[in-house]
């Protein structure tokens, strides 16, 4: 559906992205992940025909973005970064403009607008001027205009940025439900979001793809150790010592500034949770809590990005 091949874009002499290649298949939700300035927005702008690539090709639906730009723009719904909107218009007027610009048939205009306004939770603000809306509602208006004309491909640049937590959940739900019939490429630097919505992630840094994989694969692949969290009632020093002497324990840490909470790092293939519990109970301390923690996407990401930039080249 979206095919990117050796895509390069330079601003002057500064390369924004170099030799990017990836594919997004029909019906997939793919997260485009990277630190600020990694080239996410540039890539998305090329895919939506706003910027031409310096070299390389990008195809959507088999149409090249430089050669058949109009066709590509016809099938792509785009939410740009920072959600630019005509702030002097009312929501309804703006959506009606966007629908007309996207070539929605004038007889179906009203139903099309009603549908996206409903999907994005805009019913209450339809008559209001966009400039007076809160950031969250503006974001929804941006999403609504992208959904007009029911495009099979959605490209969303940081769709949940600036929203409050409940709105974030709602928008994520919306995106997930949209993804059932559409191809979605969304960029983000919020990792939990990507791990919740997307089936696959493309991690880029400094204009290059570092890795492409499913979220589950990434977290297991880069896990070098296991971590468990413990809350233990007992004399601090002795607890630490006892934990450290256990076989397979690499490291004991107290990351939460609280005397009773410990983080235990142990070898990847060794599960010593039963052992830990036994030792604590034998000493007569109170074991209040114990749970194991998967390596989060965040840690994988930091690992990858720092390897890329700081590691030996």
């Amino acid at each position, binding site marked *: 559906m979206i095919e990117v091949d050796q895509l390069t*874009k330079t*601003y002057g002499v500064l390369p924004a992205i170099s030799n990017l290649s990836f594919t997004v298949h029909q019906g997939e939700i793919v997260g485009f992940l990277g630190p600020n300035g990694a080239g996410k927005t540039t890539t998305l*702008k090329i895919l*939506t*025909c*706003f*910027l*031409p690539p310096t070299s390389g090709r990008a195809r959507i639906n088999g149409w090249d973005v430089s050669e058949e730009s*109009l*066709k590509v*723009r*016809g099938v*792509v719904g*785009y939410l*740009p970064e*920072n959600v*630019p*909107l*005509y*702030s*002097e*218009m009312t929501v309804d*007027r703006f959506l009606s*403009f*966007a629908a*007309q*610009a*996207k*070539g929605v048939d004038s007889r179906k205009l009203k139903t099309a607008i009603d549908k996206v306004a409903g999907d994005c939770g805009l019913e209450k603000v339809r008559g209001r001027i966009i400039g007076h809306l809160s950031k969250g509602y503006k974001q929804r208006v941006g999403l609504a*205009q992208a959904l007009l004309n029911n495009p099979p491909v959605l490209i969303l640049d940081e769709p949940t940025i600036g929203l409050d937590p409940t709105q974030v959940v709602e928008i994520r739900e919306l995106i997930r439900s949209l993804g059932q019939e559409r191809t979605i490429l969304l960029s983000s630097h919020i990792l939990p979001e990507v791990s919740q919505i997307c089936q696959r992630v493309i991690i880029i840094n400094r204009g290059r793809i570092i890795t492409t994989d499913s979220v589950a694969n990434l977290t297991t692949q880069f896990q070098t150790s296991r971590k468990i969290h413990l809350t233990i009632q007992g004399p601090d020093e002795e607890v630490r010592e006892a934990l450290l002497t256990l076989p397979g324990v690499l490291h004991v840490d107290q990351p939460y500034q609280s005397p009773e909470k410990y983080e235990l790092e142990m070898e990847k293939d060794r599960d010593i949770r039963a052992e830990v519990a036994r030792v604590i109970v034998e000493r007569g301390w109170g074991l209040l809590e114990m749970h194991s923690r998967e390596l989060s996407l965040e840690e994988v990401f930091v690992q990858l990005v720092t390897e890329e930039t700081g590691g030996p080249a």
Partner: protein
Amino acid sequence: MKGFSAVFRRELYAFFASPIFYVVGTIFLILSGYFFYNSVAYFSLISFQAAQNPQMGGQVNLNEMVVKPLFDDMSIILLLIVPLLTMRLLAEEKKNGTIELLLTYPLRELAVLLGKYLATLLVILIILAVTGIYMVMLAGFGKLEWGPVITGYCGLILLSAGFVSLGLFASALTQNQIIAAVIGFGALLMFWIIGWSGSVAGPGIGQVVHYLSLLDHLESFSNGVLDSRDVFYYLSFSIFFIFLTLRYLDSQKIRG
């Protein structure tokens, strides 16, 4: 032209929603009203004198003494106000980032530019139409020849078309509306007065310079002549700058 009407209507809406249109329109009408009043007052003074001195009678003519100077004055006011109407056309879109929406919708860029161009022209037509009241008043009180009035308006409309196209181009150059207005005004003024150097330049260049001048081509219209050469000049002026804007937007894309 797909999408043209969407852009055209949005642009009109933006004009009527912004105070710029009302302020500019009001100022235009106040100034032209003042010029109109002055011409009429002068005309009535001359008429009284002519009544006492029959030899002067032949020179008293509403079209020559009121309509023609009024058209000249209005063309100058247009020169001042059109850049203020065109400054936001693209500069505002660039500043707010909405150009990204516009250029990623399945619209041809030419449709976008023409939508903006014609919406602005229509707004100017609305302002000019109000000045038609002056002509109706003149016709009510005196003997007015409608021919030169109509050609005069044609001239002003064509002139505005040229002004708007250059203003549109100036607006494409920057995100700052004030800069767009200043560039637009400066360039228009240059095209206005370029004919002045025609007499000092050599005969060959002098002719070219005269031909380029926006002012020199207006002369025939207010004399009641609809010369196809002048019509052609204004139309090609407009097309040239719309084309230039189109090219400029493309080159911007390439440079990023």
